[in-house]
């Protein structure tokens, strides 16, 4: 079964159409990247799937179920999102414990919440001593781990990742990327990741779609990306701009 099927998606913000005719499929258990620069509409696609962007036409279906235009409580247990900015995605007045136990409270999940919180902290590589800290007492990498932990509390099968490492330092980015890769392997997750960083796609993803000015210009396999075999001239330009001397 496909995890995500998108067909002819046009998303608008107010009067402006931000994406045109987007179509792609993500298989279950796959890691798929939406690549593009700012203004390409890639984050908008993610928001439409999540229900944060409500004005769209076309069809979106997740695990076989067509998506409505808004947020869906049931959907929350299938799909969650990790945001880009580790400084903005955690409530400044809530401890890590409060942030992680909230989804359990919202959905009336039974059992020992405290234990589940601690297990999740272990799973994302955070020491338990961080459990009652506030976000301003955590580093960027630690906050992002909390954000990932929060997304996984409801045990979703699909994770939407909006540039999860672009606001992080290089050394921290490596840790988070390793974590994401490990979690996907351990829990059989499906990833749809938005990024502008091609090497991250090479590391973490199986397939990618290149977007430009609201349209998909190419869909390819990561193998093609690594060999520099993308076809569309814009894609090739992006590859060239990513290549760096220490890597030739």
């Amino acid at each position, binding site marked *: 079964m496909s995890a995500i099927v998108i067909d002819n998606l046009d998303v608008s913000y107010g009067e402006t159409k931000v994406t045109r005719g987007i179509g792609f499929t993500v298989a279950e258990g796959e890691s798929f990247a939406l690549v593009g620069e700012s203004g390409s509409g890639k984050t908008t696609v993610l928001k439409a799937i999540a229900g944060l962007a409500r004005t769209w036409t076309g069809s979106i279906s997740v695990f076989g179920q067509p998506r409505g235009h808004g947020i869906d409580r049931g959907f929350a247990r299938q799909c969650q999102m990790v945001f880009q900015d580790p400084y903005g995605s955690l409530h400044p007045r809530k401890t890590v414990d409060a942030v992680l136990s909230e989804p359990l409270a919202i959905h009336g999940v039974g059992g020992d919440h405290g234990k589940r919180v601690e297990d999740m902290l272990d799973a994302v590589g955070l020491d338990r001593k961080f459990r009652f800290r506030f976000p301003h007492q955590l580093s960027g990498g630690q906050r992002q781990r909390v954000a990932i932990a929060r997304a996984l509390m409801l045990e979703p099968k699909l994770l939407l990742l909006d540039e999860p490492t672009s606001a992080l330092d290089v050394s921290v980015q*490596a840790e988070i990327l390793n974590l994401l890769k490990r979690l996907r392997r351990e829990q059989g997750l499906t990833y749809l990741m938005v990024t502008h960083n*091609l*090497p991250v796609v090479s590391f973490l993803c199986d397939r990618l779609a290149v977007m430009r000015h609201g349209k998909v210009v190419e869909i390819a396999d990561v193998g093609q*990306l690594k*060999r*520099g075999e993308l076809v569309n001239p814009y894609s090739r*330009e992006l590859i060239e701009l990513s290549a760096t*001397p*220490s890597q030739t």
Partner: protein
Amino acid sequence: MTNLLEVRNLRVTFPTARGPVDVVKGISFSLGRERLGIVGESGSGKSMTGRSILRLIRAPGRVTAERLDFDGVDLLRQSEKQLRAIRGARISMIMQDPKFSLNPVMTIGAQIAEALLTHQRLGRGDIRQRVHAMLESVRIADPERVAKLYPHEVSGGMGQRVMIAMMLIPEPDLLIADEPTSALDVSVQAQVLDIIDDLVKRKGMGLIFISHDLNLVSSYCDRILVMYAGSVVEECVAGELQNAKHPYTQGLLAAIPRLNETRDELPVLDRSGWAA
């Protein structure tokens, strides 16, 4: 040939609840008319270093150094008035995000003109000519039209080019660029870097390029300083980066994913090797 900039034992200290903390811990370097890259992650002190050269760090921060000489002038002993004459005219700084560094209520032309007027007295016609000429030199095709626009009406890349124009119009000798391309799209980055490169070469300026992007700095600068937690851990010629000796630099290079990535796991920095 005297060096353009001579820094010896520069220290920047901030008071905190737990006592004074050194964010720059006594670093030394010199700069000729070349391109020096200062690379580091957040908290490394690289931006503080740039700002302390321009004496832009205000109380409660404190800047001390054995030497902080710019072209023979001791920057530590200059009065605020003398420093104002140096800032912009002889040392200039480009910052990261034009959204925040350009004045939103002044037109682009007015801001560039202001940068010029602060240091020279010219007639209106002369100013306008200089502004347009400067906009052209940063490859803005329609300078008359752009000069009348406000910052929010132009794209990020163009905003950054405006910032470069503004900072280079007084023709300084030293340019400090603090993450000038981090807020820009990949396709625009190359163009902006090209413009900076061109202007720096043409006017024989010195350039300090501060960034977190090791690869970018190595391809763009002549020499590199790698900073970690306030100290310089590596100093090398740009082309020699692969032969970096310090474990932090090596670790950083290894941790960056490659386009043709084959590793299953990225090597993670083990800071216990050198952490203070």
